C-alpha cells in the first residue's frame, strides 16, 4: 500500500474542494447579449402592445398583445374594441399558448409510404398540392371554419380560379337557426345580434350568454352595466335564465327556470302570450293571440315545460311592464330538432317586448362565408361517395367536432388527398396526406368581422417560430402555380392592406374600424302567424334527456390542447382535466351513485363511460355532458397521461350523438335520450372544491336588494366567530353576543330568504377597519418610510362577478404559473394564485360530518343563491403568514403588501398553514423545469420570477405592473395615479368586478368602491387580518315580480 505524503494529501484536498465547488455551481452560466443593432420600437425591458383580434371563438374580441423584446407574453383586451371593451375571457387569455405550443408542426409535412408524416420543403408542398388539384380541379373541395372577410374572399377567389368544387364553411356552434328564425318571423335574411345594454329584464332561453353564448364577454359586460347597483338604485336589470341545469349563466340569474330541455320555444311563446295578455305588445301582437299565440296557453305550456303556470303569468306581467326587456335564443346545449321554431318563438317574444331594432337588431351581414351544417353533411356524403379528390381543411377540426355517426372519419379515408392547414396536430391532420401548417393567430395577418360595424384587424406580433406559412400566402402560391394570371403578385398582407384602403395605419393602431352600423328596420312577417312550436321528441327510450352544453373553456374542443384551459376548473363543478356527467342528486341516490362512480351512457348513436357528478342543480330527467373532451390526438394536454403517451382524456359527447339537424338543416344537439347504467367502477375526479357549504362564514356574502335600497350598512355576517367580539364593538346586552356566548349560533337561513330577513332586522354592523391602522402616524411609526404614499388594495364586487374564471386564466399567463396536470390536480396541488370559490347560499352551521370525504352539494332545483367569490392573497395588514416564517421569506413591505422572497424561502410551509384564506401555493416539484417544455418557455413573462422546487408562492397584486407604473411616474416626477396600475385579473374581467388602487388616495376608485357601507365587507373579518382586499356583497334581487 502506497503512502500518501503531505503534498499528495494537499493535492487531493485541493482537487476535491475544487470539484465540490464546481459541482455546487452546476448551472451553466448564460450571458446576456445586448442587441448589436437595436431594433426600432424595442427597448429592452419595455413592453410594446399591438392591437389584434382573438380567434378563439367567433365573437371576435379585440386584443392588445403585450410583447417584450419582440415576443408576445400576454394577451389583453383592447379597450377601444366595441365587442369586449378591454376585457378578455379565459379562452382568449390562453390563446397565446397556441403560438408556443410544443405540439406545433415545425414545417410542411407529407405522409410517406409507411404512413408517417415526414418533413418536406414549402416548394415541394406547394407543387405537390398544385399537382393534385390539377389532376381533378372539379373534385377539389375546401372545408374550413369561419374566417375573416379578406381571407374568406381569397378562398372564394382560389376556389373559382382553380375551378374547384364546393367551399364549405363549418362552425360547430354556428347559430344557423337564428337566421332561419329571422326569416320565419321577420322575413329577413339576416342574423340578429343582441345588445343587453340598457335592458331592464333579460331572459336567456339557454344561450348560456355569459360563458359560451353568442358573445359572452360583451353580453357579460352589458348585463353587469345594466345591473349596476350604483347606477340603478332599484337593482337594474333582472336576469332570468331558462336552463335544465344550474349552469354558470343560470348561477348568475335572479330567477332560474329549470324548464324541460327543448321546450324553450314553447315557454317563450307562452311568455309572449302572457305578455300580450298582460297588456304588453302592440296591436299587431294582439292579432297574433288568435293565430301564433292561440295555442300558447300558460297552463298547457306549464305542463309541457314543467314550469308553474303562475311563473309564466308572473313573468308575462313583468315583461309587459318592462321598458326594455330582451330575450336570448336557445344555445348549443338545448338546441333540438325543433330549434328554428324555438328560436323563432324567442324572436317573436323579443318583438312583443319591443326589443326589435334596439336590443335585437338586424345588421347587414359581414362579407364572409357563412357556416352551414347542411352543406358540411352534404360534403361528407360526397366524400363517402368518392366524389372528392382533394380536400383542403383549414381552421377547423371536423374529424373531432362532427358527430362520430356522421362518418367523417370513414369519408375522409375515401378522399385520396387530404390537405390540412392546421398549425397543430388534430384528429383531422391525423388523416391528412399533406400538412401545410398555417401561422398561429399571433403570427398572422388577418381581419375579422363578427358583425356589421365591427371590422377588426389581426397583425403578427412575432416572427413565426417555425417554418410555417399563412394560409392566405399558401393559397396565393398554389393559385399562382395553377393559374398564374388569376392571382396578384405580393403577399396576403398586401391583399389585406389593399382591401382596407386608406385607413390602414389608423386601423392597425386602433385594432380595426368601428363605426356603428345601421340596422335594417324589420316588421313581423305574415308567416309568423303560422308559427308552430312544439316540444321535440327525443330518440331512444332512455330515462334521461342528454343535454350537451359546450365546455366553458374547451368550447367546441379547440381549447382541449391548451393546458391552462384543462387546468382551470370548470366554473360550476370545479372539475378539471376530464369529463363528468351531471346527474341529479335524487337520481344518483336512487341508483346508489356517488361522486366519481363511473356510469355507461348509451344512446341510439353510441355509448361512453363517464364518472358522475351528482348535483341538486339539474333536472331529474336530464343528464348533462359537456362538449370538448375526448380527443384522440393532441399530445400536450388533450390526451391523458402527463406525457400524452396513451389514452384519451374524458369522453366526447360526439360519440353519443347522431347527425342531428333542425328544421332547416342546422345543427341540433338535443336529440337523444340516454340510458344510464352503473359500470360498478369508480374513479376520483380531479377537482379543486368539494364542498359548496360556506357554513355561514364571511366568504362570498350577499345582501338583499331591500337592505341595499334602504341604505342599511352591512359589515358582514360574522356568523360563528367569537373572535370578532373584541373589536366589533358589540356589548353584553347584544342578543347576538349572548347567543354566541351560549354556544348557540344564529340560524343563518338555509336559503337566501332567511338571510335577507336577518339583515333587514337590525343586523349588527361591524366596523370595517382599513387595511392599515387609522392611528398610523408615519413620522412616529415608520420614520424610514414616512414618504410612502401608497397602500395597495383591491375591491371585488361580487354583484358583478359572474364566476367566469377569466381572471384565473389571466393570472396564470401573467404570472408564469405552472400548469401541474391531471395527476397533481387529483392531489389538489394546483398552483393557481387566484381561485374562484363557489358556495350555495350561506350554508349551514349544523355539525354534521360524513365519515368520508364529502362532496357536499347544496344546490336546489330552481334556486340560484350561488356565491362566486374570487379568492387570492388578501395582502393583510396584520398578515398571519408573516410572523411564522422563520427566515423572513414572507414579509410586509412599506406599501402594505405582503411580499414573498422566493430565494429566501426554505419551504417550511408554515405560512400556508397559517393563511386563513388558503391562497398560498407550494412548489412540490420543480414545476418550472418540468411544466414548460420548449418552446413554451418563450412565453414566460420576463417581469415575473419563475419559482423553483420547494418554495412557496402566491398573488403579488401584480407587483411587476406596479413597478412599471412607478418607473413611469418617477420619470414624470409624480406619484402613481389612480387607475394607472391595472392588475392582470382586473384587466381581464368582462364585468369590471375588480378595482385595484391605493388606499391612501382618498378619491381613488378603490376608496369610493369600498366606502359603500351597504355592501362592503372583509373576508373572515373576525380574524382581524385587515386585508387589503375587500369585497362588495352580492345583491339578492329575488325572483322577478309580476
Amino acid at each position, binding site marked *: 500500500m502506497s503512502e500518501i505524503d503531505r503534498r499528495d494529501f494537499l493535492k487531493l484536498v485541493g482537487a476535491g474542494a475544487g470539484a465540490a465547488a464546481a459541482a455546487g455551481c452546476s448551472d451553466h452560466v448564460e450571458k446576456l447579449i445586448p442587441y448589436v443593432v437595436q431594433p426600432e420600437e424595442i427597448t429592452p425591458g419595455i413592453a410594446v402592445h399591438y392591437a389584434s383580434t382573438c380567434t378563439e371563438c367567433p365573437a371576435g374580441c379585440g386584443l392588445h398583445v403585450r410583447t417584450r423584446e419582440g415576443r408576445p407574453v400576454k394577451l389583453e383586451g383592447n379597450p377601444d374594441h366595441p365587442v369586449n371593451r378591454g376585457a378578455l375571457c379565459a379562452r382568449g387569455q390562453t390563446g397565446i399558448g397556441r403560438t408556443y405550443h410544443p405540439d406545433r408542426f415545425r414545417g410542411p409535412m407529407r405522409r410517406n409510404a409507411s404512413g408517417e408524416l415526414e418533413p418536406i420543403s414549402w416548394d415541394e408542398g406547394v407543387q405537390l398540392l398544385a399537382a393534385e388539384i390539377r389532376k381533378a380541379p372539379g373534385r377539389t373541395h375546401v372545408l374550413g371554419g369561419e374566417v375573416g372577410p379578406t381571407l374568406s374572399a381569397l378562398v372564394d377567389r382560389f376556389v373559382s380560379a382553380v375551378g374547384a368544387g364546393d367551399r364549405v364553411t363549418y362552425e360547430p356552434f354556428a347559430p344557423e337557426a337564428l337566421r332561419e328564425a329571422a326569416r320565419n318571423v321577420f322575413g329577413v335574411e339576416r342574423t340578429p345580434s343582441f345588445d343587453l345594454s340598457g335592458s331592464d329584464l333579460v331572459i336567456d332561453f339557454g344561450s348560456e350568454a355569459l360563458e359560451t353564448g353568442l358573445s359572452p364577454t360583451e353580453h357579460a359586460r352589458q348585463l353587469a352595466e345594466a345591473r349596476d347597483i350604483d347606477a340603478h338604485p332599484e337593482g337594474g336589470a333582472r336576469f332570468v335564465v331558462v336552463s335544465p341545469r344550474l349552469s354558470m349563466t343560470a348561477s348568475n340569474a335572479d330567477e332560474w327556470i329549470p324548464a324541460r330541455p327543448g321546450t324553450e320555444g314553447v315557454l317563450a311563446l307562452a311568455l309572449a302570450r302572457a305578455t300580450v295578455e298582460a297588456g304588453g305588445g302592440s296591436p299587431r301582437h294582439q292579432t297574433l293571440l288568435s293565430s301564433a299565440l292561440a295555442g300558447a296557453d300558460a297552463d298547457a305550456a306549464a305542463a309541457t315545460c314543467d314550469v308553474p303556470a303562475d311563473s309564466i303569468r308572473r313573468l308575462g306581467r313583468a315583461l309587459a311592464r318592462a321598458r326594455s326587456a330582451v330575450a336570448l335564443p336557445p344555445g348549443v346545449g338545448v338546441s333540438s330538432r325543433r330549434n328554428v321554431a324555438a328560436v323563432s318563438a324567442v324572436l317573436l317574444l323579443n318583438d312583443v317586448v319591443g326589443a326589435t331594432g334596439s336590443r335585437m337588431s338586424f345588421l347587414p351581414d359581414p362579407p364572409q362565408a357563412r357556416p352551414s351544417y347542411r352543406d358540411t353533411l352534404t360534403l361528407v356524403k360526397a366524400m363517402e361517395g368518392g366524389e372528392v379528390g382533394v380536400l383542403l381543411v383549414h381552421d377547423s377540426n371536423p374529424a373531432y367536432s362532427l358527430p362520430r355517426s356522421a362518418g367523417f372519419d370513414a369519408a375522409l379515408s375515401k378522399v385520396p388527398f387530404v390537405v390540412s392547414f392546421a398549425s397543430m396536430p388534430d384528429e383531422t391532420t391525423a388523416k391528412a396526406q399533406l400538412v401545410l401548417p398555417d401561422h398561429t393567430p399571433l403570427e398572422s395577418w388577418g381581419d375579422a368581422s363578427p358583425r356589421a360595424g365591427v371590422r377588426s384587424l389581426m397583425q403578427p406580433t412575432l416572427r413565426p417560430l417555425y417554418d410555417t406559412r399563412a394560409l392566405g400566402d399558401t393559397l396565393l402560391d398554389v393559385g399562382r402555380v395553377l393559374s398564374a394570371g388569376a392571382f396578384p403578385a405580393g403577399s396576403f398582407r398586401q391583399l389585406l392592406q389593399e382591401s382596407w384602403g386608406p385607413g390602414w395605419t389608423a386601423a392597425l393602431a386602433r385594432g380595426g374600424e368601428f363605426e356603428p352600423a345601421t340596422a335594417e328596420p324589420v316588421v313581423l312577417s305574415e308567416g309568423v302567424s303560422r308559427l308552430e312550436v312544439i316540444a321535440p321528441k327525443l330518440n331512444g327510450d332512455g330515462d334521461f334527456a342528454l343535454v350537451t352544453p359546450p365546455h366553458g373553456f374547451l368550447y367546441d374542443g379547440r381549447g382541449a390542447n391548451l393546458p391552462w384551459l384543462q387546468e382551470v376548473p370548470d366554473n360550476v363543478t370545479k372539475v378539471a382535466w376530464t369529463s363528468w356527467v351531471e346527474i341529479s342528486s335524487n337520481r344518483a341516490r336512487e341508483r346508489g351513485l356517488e361522486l366519481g362512480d363511473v356510469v355507461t351512457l348509451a344512446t341510439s348513436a353510441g355509448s361512453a363511460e363517464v364518472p358522475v357528478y351528482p348535483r341538486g342543480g339539474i333536472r331529474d330527467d336530464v343528464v348533462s355532458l359537456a362538449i370538448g373532451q375526448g380527443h384522440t390526438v393532441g399530445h400536450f394536454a388533450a390526451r391523458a397521461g402527463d406525457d400524452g403517451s396513451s389514452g384519451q382524456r374524458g369522453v366526447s359527447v360526439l360519440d353519443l350523438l347522431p347527425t342531428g339537424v333542425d328544421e332547416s338543416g342546422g345543427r341540433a344537439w338535443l336529440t337523444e335520450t340516454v340510458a344510464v347504467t352503473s359500470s360498478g367502477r369508480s374513479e376520483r375526479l380531479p377537482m*379543486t*372544491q*368539494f*364542498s*359548496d357549504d360556506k*357554513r355561514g*362564514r364571511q366568504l362570498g356574502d350577499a345582501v338583499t336588494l331591500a337592505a341595499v335600497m334602504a341604505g342599511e350598512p352591512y359589515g358582514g355576517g360574522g*356568523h*360563528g*366567530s*367569537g*373572535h370578532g367580539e373584541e373589536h366589533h364593538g358589540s356589548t353584553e346586552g347584544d342578543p347576538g353576543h349572548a*347567543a354566541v356566548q*351560549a*354556544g*348557540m349560533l344564529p340560524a343563518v337561513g338555509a336559503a337566501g330568504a332567511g338571510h335577507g330577513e336577518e339583515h333587514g332586522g337590525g343586523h349588527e354592523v361591524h366596523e370595517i377597519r382599513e387595511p392599515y391602522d387609522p392611528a398610523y402616524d408615519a413620522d412616529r411609526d415608520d420614520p424610514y418610510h414616512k414618504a410612502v404614499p401608497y397602500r395597495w388594495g383591491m375591491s371585488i364586487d361580487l354583484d358583478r362577478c359572474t364566476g367566469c374564471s377569466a381572471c384565473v386564466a389571466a393570472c396564470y399567463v401573467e404570472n408564469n404559473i405552472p400548469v401541474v396536470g391531471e395527476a*397533481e390536480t387529483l*392531489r*389538489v*396541488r*394546483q398552483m393557481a394564485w387566484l*381561485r374562484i*370559490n*363557489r358556495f350555495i347560499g350561506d*350554508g349551514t*352551521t349544523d*355539525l354534521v*360530518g*360524513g*365519515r*368520508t*370525504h*364529502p362532496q357536499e352539494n347544496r344546490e336546489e332545483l330552481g334556486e340560484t343563491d350561488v356565491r362566486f367569490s374570487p379568492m387570492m392573497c388578501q395582502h393583510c395588514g396584520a398578515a*398571519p403568514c408573516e*410572523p*411564522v*416564517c*422563520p*427566515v*423572513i421569506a414572507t414579509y410586509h413591505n412599506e406599501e402594505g403588501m405582503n411580499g414573498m422572497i422566493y430565494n*429566501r*424561502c*426554505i419551504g*417550511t*410551509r*408554515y405560512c*400556508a*398553514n*397559517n393563511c*386563513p384564506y*388558503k391562497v398560498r*401555493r*407550494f*412548489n*412540490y*416539484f*420543480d414545476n418550472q423545469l418540468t411544466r414548460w417544455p420548449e418552446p413554451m418557455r418563450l412565453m414566460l413573462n420576463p417581469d415575473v420570477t419563475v419559482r423553483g*422546487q*420547494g418554495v412557496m408562492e402566491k398573488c403579488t397584486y401584480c407587483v411587476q405592473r406596479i413597478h412599471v407604473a412607478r418607473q413611469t411616474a418617477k420619470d414624470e416626477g409624480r406619484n402613481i395615479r389612480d387607475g394607472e396600475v391595472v392588475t392582470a385579473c382586473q384587466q381581464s374581467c368582462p364585468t369590471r368586478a375588480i378595482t385595484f388602487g391605493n388606499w391612501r388616495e382618498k378619491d381613488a376608485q378603490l376608496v369610493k368602491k369600498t366606502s359603500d357601507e351597504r355592501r362592503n365587507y372583509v373576508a373572515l373579518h373576525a*380574524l382581524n387580518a385587515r386585508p387589503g382586499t375587500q369585497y362588495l356583497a352580492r345583491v339578492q334581487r329575488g325572483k322577478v315580480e309580476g
Partner: protein
Amino acid sequence: MSPPPAMPVAEAIRSAPEPADSKINTDILAVMGRPSAGYWALLGLSATAVGAAALTWIYQIYVGLGIAGYTHPVFWGAYIVTFVFWVGIAHAGTLISAILYLFRAKWRNAINRSAEAMTVFAVLTAAQFLGIHVGRIWKSYFILPYPNQRGMWVNFKSPLMWDTFAISTYATISIVFFYIGLIPDLAIARDRATGWRRLLYTALALGWQGTSRQWKSHTRSVLHLSGLATPLVLSVHSVVSWDFASSIVPGWHATIFAPYFVAGAIFSGFAMVLTVMIPVRRIYKLEAYITDYHFENMARFLLLTSLIVGYAYGTEYFVAWYSGVEWEKTSFWLRAFGPYWISTWIMIICNGVIPQIFWFKWARTHIPTLFIVATFINIGMWFERYVIIITSLSREFDPAVWGVYYPSAAELTILAGSFGFFAMLFLIFLKIFPVIAIAEVKELAIHDKSHGHHEPAPAAAGGKS
C-alpha cells in the same frame, strides 16, 4: 443543597462487598458481549429500514416534496407528526435522569442510562425530520442566526425559530448529560476491555481514575446538568407545542397546548422506555437490576400522564364548544366524526382508555400487559399528533378548500426508517456502552446494604468505583 453524606466515603468503600461489585460489573458488561444471531438480524432489519428511508429521502430531495401526500390545505404531514412524536419520546430520558435525580427518586438508577440513550437517539431521529420536512434542505442553514455576507437575518417571532433553538439546546444538553454519566462506567469497561474497545474506552473515559476529586467534580456536574436539563424537559415540548398554538388554525390555536404536549411527551417517553426495556431486560437477564418495582413506577407515571392527556382531550372539546366559535366547533366535530374519525378514536382509546388498566396493581406488575399497553400508547401517541396536525389543517377557515391528506408510501417508508434509525442506534448502544449505570447501581447496592431497603436514600454525593 443536599445534606452532607451520612457515611464517610472511605468507609463506604471499605464496607463494599467486593464479590457483589464484580457481579454487577460482569452482569452488566455481559450485555456488551458477543452479539447473537438474533441481534444481528435485528440490526440488519433496522439498517435496512434506515437504508430504504435514506434512499427515499435522497429521491425526495432530488424530485421534490411532491412524493409525500401533501394536498392543498394540508401543508404539514407525516413528517411533522413523526418529528413531534420523536421529540416526545425524547422526554422520558431527561425526566428520569434529571428530574427524578433532583427528587432523589433512587429507583431511576436502574433505567436512567437506557432512558438517556433513548433521549439522545430520539432527539437525533427527530432532528432529521426538520430536514426531511422542508422544501429546500440545501438552504435550511438560512434558519441559523449568524452574521453573514447575505445580509440575512432570521425571524425571532417565528415559533419555528424557537423550535430550532429548543431542539438544538435539548440535543446538546442530553448528549452532554448522557456522556458525563457514562464516564465512570467507561472507565470500568476500559479496565476490562481489550483491543479496539480498550482504545475507544480509554479515549472516552478521559482518564477517569475514580479519585474522590474526580467523583466530586462528576457528581457536581451531574447535579448542575440536572438543574439545567429540568426546565428543558418542560420547555422543549412547550416550544414544540407553540409551533401549533401560536398559529390561528382552528384546532391548534389553544392555550392548553404547552402542558398538554409536555404531559403527552412524558407519557409517550415512558411508554417507549417500557417498550424497549422489557425485551432488553428479558434477553439480557437483568431482572436483578431492572426490577418489577421499576416497571410499576413507570406504569404509575403512565397512568398519571394518561389522565392529564385525557383531560386535555376533554378540555379541547369543551373549549371548542364553549367558545361558540363556529370554525372551532366544526373542526373538533369533524375530528371525531369526519374523515379522520378512525385516527381520533385510536388516539382516545389508546391514550385515554387503555392505560386506565394501570389502576390495578396486577396490570402494573404483569409484564406482558405492561408491554402491550405501552405499545398501544406508542401507537396512540403517534396518532395524537396525526390528529392534531392533519385534521386541523384539513378543515380550516375556507370550506371551499377543505381537503383530505393521506400519507404516501414515501412518508411511510421514512416513518419506518425513523424507527429503524432509533432501533439501530439503540442496538449499537447496547453493545458499546453499559446499558445500566454501573456506578449508580453500585451506589444503590451499597446504600441498600448500609441502610436496609426501606431507608430513604442519602445524598448522591457518595460513591465508589
